[in-house]
């Protein structure tokens, strides 16, 4: 999952990005509202974490512009303003969630996951595909109770495919979703990651399969065989 973090506090940006990457997210960051707006308009993100007090273009104005341009990316507002009026103003402007500083990092990640589930129409934090259970909250994948060990990249790719289960997802979409803009992509990194996941699913004898749709992309489906 790809996150855009727009926050002018260098330390907060640094450690929040670090923590989010550790949690498996691809994170792009911006230090001011204008840069953040440009990134949000240029790239597809699963969630935008937006500070309100930004230089250049303040958070509410940025949010307003995004919504006017038809960008419906979920936005989690991160701010020190904690009054009811501030929260209402943010939510009315188009924010999907509101988190007051200082916050527990665990809460940030939980709210991000909730927004992502909502974005993909998922009611629960875990997705079933055949006998495969993909828990996005706990970051685990189990097959009939047995944990399948995946790397962070493999887990996120599988989660992304599971969130669009039954639908074809292109390579480009996968790359956008799980890699931040600073990542140097090798040309076949998606293919090799797909291959690695398939191997592990076969070893686990999972009744779920990643199908290749030549020229189109990939999809995760229960194995009907």
């Amino acid at each position, binding site marked *: 999952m790809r996150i855009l973090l727009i926050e002018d506090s260098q330390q907060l940006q640094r450690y929040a990005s670090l923590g989010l990457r550790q949690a498996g997210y691809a994170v792009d960051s911006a230090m001011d509202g204008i840069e953040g707006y440009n990134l949000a308009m240029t790239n597809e993100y699963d969630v935008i974490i937006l500070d309100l007090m930004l230089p250049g273009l303040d958070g509410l104005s940025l949010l307003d512009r995004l919504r006017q341009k038809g960008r419906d990316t979920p936005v989690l507002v991160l701010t*020190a303003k904690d009054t009811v009026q501030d929260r209402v103003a943010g939510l009315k402007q188009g924010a999907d969630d509101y988190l007051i500083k*200082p916050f527990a990092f665990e809460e940030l990640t939980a709210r991000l996951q909730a927004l992502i589930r909502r974005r993909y129409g998922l009611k629960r934090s875990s997705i079933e595909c055949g006998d495969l259970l993909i828990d996005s909250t706990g970051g685990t994948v189990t097959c009939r109770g047995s944990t399948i060990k995946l790397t962070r990249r493999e887990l996120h790719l599988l989660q992304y495919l599971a969130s669009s289960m039954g639908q074809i997802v292109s390579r480009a979409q996968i790359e956008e979703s799980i890699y931040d803009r600073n990542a140097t992509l090798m040309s076949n990194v998606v293919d090799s990651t797909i291959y690695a996941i398939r191997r592990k699913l076969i070893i686990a004898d999972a009744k779920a399969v990643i199908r290749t749709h030549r020229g189109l992309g990939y999809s995760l489906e229960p194995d009907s065989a």
Partner: protein
Amino acid sequence: MKSIRREMTVWLIATVGVLLVISGLILYQYVRVVLTEGFDEALLDQAKAVSTMTMQEPDGHLEFELNPLSTPQFLATLKPQYYQVWTLTDVSFVRSPSLQDGDMKPIPTSTTPHFSDIRLPDGRLGRRVDLKFRPILELVDGKLMENPPPPAPEMMVVVARERESLDTTLATIKGFSFLASLLIAVGGAVAVSLIVRRTTRTLRRLGVEVDSIQPDDLKGRLSTDHLPSELWPIVSKWNSLLDRMQAALEREHRFTADAAHELRTPVAELRTLTDVVGNWTTESPAISEAFRDAREIAIRMEKLISALLNLSRHEAGTLIAEPQRVDLCLMLDEVRKQLNPAAVIRGVSFQVEMPDSTFVNTDQVFARACLFNLLDNAVAHSPVNSQVHCTIKSLGDQEGMIVVTIDNPCGELRECDLVHACEPFWRKEAARSQSGHFGLGMALVKAYARAISARFDFRLDSGSHFIAELRFPS
């Protein structure tokens, strides 16, 4: 209490009254003297008239030529007047018919004429004049004689008449003066009272306006409409003082709010750093512990910031309660359980007396915060291995109050400390070493209680127990 209006009224009325009395007396005395002088003058004229009736004949013989019938006032009638002429050797020369056989002996005196009061022969109060005179020489054919005889010796004439008319007049004047003074005094008292009341109306209005200014709301100003010039400097200085105080208070509120706000981002940075990096595995337990400690510090700072912001919002009047139906018994039980781990560490136990449920209409967050802070304080400040007593009671339908009481022993607290108990950051011990407590708990309880219209009281009982009470309308 002293009253300017009352003092002014009393003193003005008393002063006017005294002045009236004095002026009345002076006037009366003056009138009495004038009237008496007039009376005496008339009496003297009569004495002179009688004296001129005593003449010296050419042969030196003295003759009294007054026809009693031409002077009927001297006849023996009702309320007559009297006269008697004497030689200086106290020999009566002539007397008025009204005297009959009686005498009016002359009063030995060096001054003449001499006036004095007298009891007349018929018992009436009278006034007499004693006048020394020398009989005049009778003219012959309208001319003085060529060889007049030696002058006759001096004689004394005494004339007396009743003074009832004078006394009546004086009494009438006295009575009229008294009545007039009384009327003027009463009228003056009423007028003074009305005038003082009217002129002090502005002071009363100012008093009411000043009384309406609340200590925590300095927006009110004294009206300068229709203000007397004497009060203008006071009122304008007062308003100016309030302006400065309000500005200072608002600066203080803003500072508290701004400071807390500004602290949020650095604390958020610290919190995120410790949350993220603290989870990294490390071979050094000291580093792990350091990150845990840093995280705890960040959490404490977060609590302090929230408390300060809530306090500043209370002071600014922006703490808004959202009432709903709340079970106080359930809430107290939850708070007690939440604090139980900390209580166990100190050996503090709870004794709870409350019904199964008690519902009130109040803001859940604020009410819970009140209970938490009170119970937290009780656990923290009770001696080790002591007991905190919690009760929830209804005061009955008439009072309509639900009372939550937290009673804990507190050996070191004194009666004189209670006045500071709700001051932000006040703590009994100066060291401020107790972890997690900033001295804001009681101040927050007071602020939240006010926001939810609950009454918050506390006291020390004789057994060194601190008793805090929260009264909720049921």
